[in-house]
């Protein structure tokens, strides 16, 4: 039979992880933020866990699919929000890609999560400044936003660690690795 190739085990894994990330993304979008521009970014926990379990490529798929599917479900596809989200996910993946080049055991969930959060905020800020609000006043917001990113990066790292510990005991993950 020719045509569409059957999904591989890796494809299914990415789909499951992305679905989990999308669910968290949607839940988080439903909660109002006390400060515009600041939210915990818990969906990144799934990206961090994917990276540590299956490598950067899987994490990149999960992160980008989350942005795409999340925006379609929220109705923000191709809107400014979408590009900010995409830029943030891209920045986060690039930042997390640096230590991913090094031996696997050198960096843990905390390091990846903090790097990802800061990369996310940095890229998002750059895009907001370049495309939407090219105003020096915007830079005043960078310090508190970066501080929030660091804090939520730490929180996400701790959650990712707990998630990985839980998963380590399951056969499914052991088999997949």
């Amino acid at each position, binding site marked *: 039979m020719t045509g569409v190739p059957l999904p591989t085990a890796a494809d299914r894994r990415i789909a499951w992880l992305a679905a989990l990330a999308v669910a968290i993304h949607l839940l988080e979008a439903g909660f109002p933020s006390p400060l515009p521009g600041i939210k915990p970014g818990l969906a990144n926990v799934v990206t961090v866990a994917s990276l540590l379990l299956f490598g950067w490529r899987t994490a990149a798929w999960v992160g980008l699919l989350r942005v795409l599917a999340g925006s379609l479900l929220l109705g923000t596809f191709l809107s400014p929000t979408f590009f900010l989200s995409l830029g943030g996910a891209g920045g986060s993946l690039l930042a997390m890609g640096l230590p991913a080049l090094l031996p696997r055991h050198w960096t843990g969930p905390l390091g990846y999560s903090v790097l990802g959060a800061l990369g996310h905020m940095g890229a998002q800020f750059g895009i907001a400044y370049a495309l939407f609000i090219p105003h020096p006043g915007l830079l005043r917001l*960078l310090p508190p936003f970066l501080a929030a990113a660091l804090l939520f990066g730490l929180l996400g790292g701790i959650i990712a660690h707990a998630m990985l510990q839980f998963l380590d005991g399951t056969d499914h993950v052991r088999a997949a690795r």
Partner: protein
Amino acid sequence: MKMPLRPLDLPILLLGLLAVVTAFQRLGSGHRAGAWVEIRTAERRLQPLPLDQDRVLHVRGRLGVSTIEIHQGAVRFLDSPCHGKLCIRSGWQRHAGDFAACLPNRVSLLVRGPDRRFDSINF
């Protein structure tokens, strides 16, 4: 719960902390001390006055004379012949960009500094 740190975790954390501290230092909170004050009335604009020289001014407006005090780097309306006295209740103005006005008397003061600050940012 025990949280084992990998070798690069702590350096990354410290690097992030450094980035945040640097951002705060370089970009600041946005509040810079003012250096001088510009006082305007409906008819004229007074010569800018330095905030480091204490003095009391009497400025004639539409209704009467507003009294403005400059003291230790800050400036305020001390008295004004208006009803609401909002200008007086605005209190001391000391940061670049701070502003107080007595609208009935058409007298306003604006603190200026070496770099300009935005009074509000909307997005």
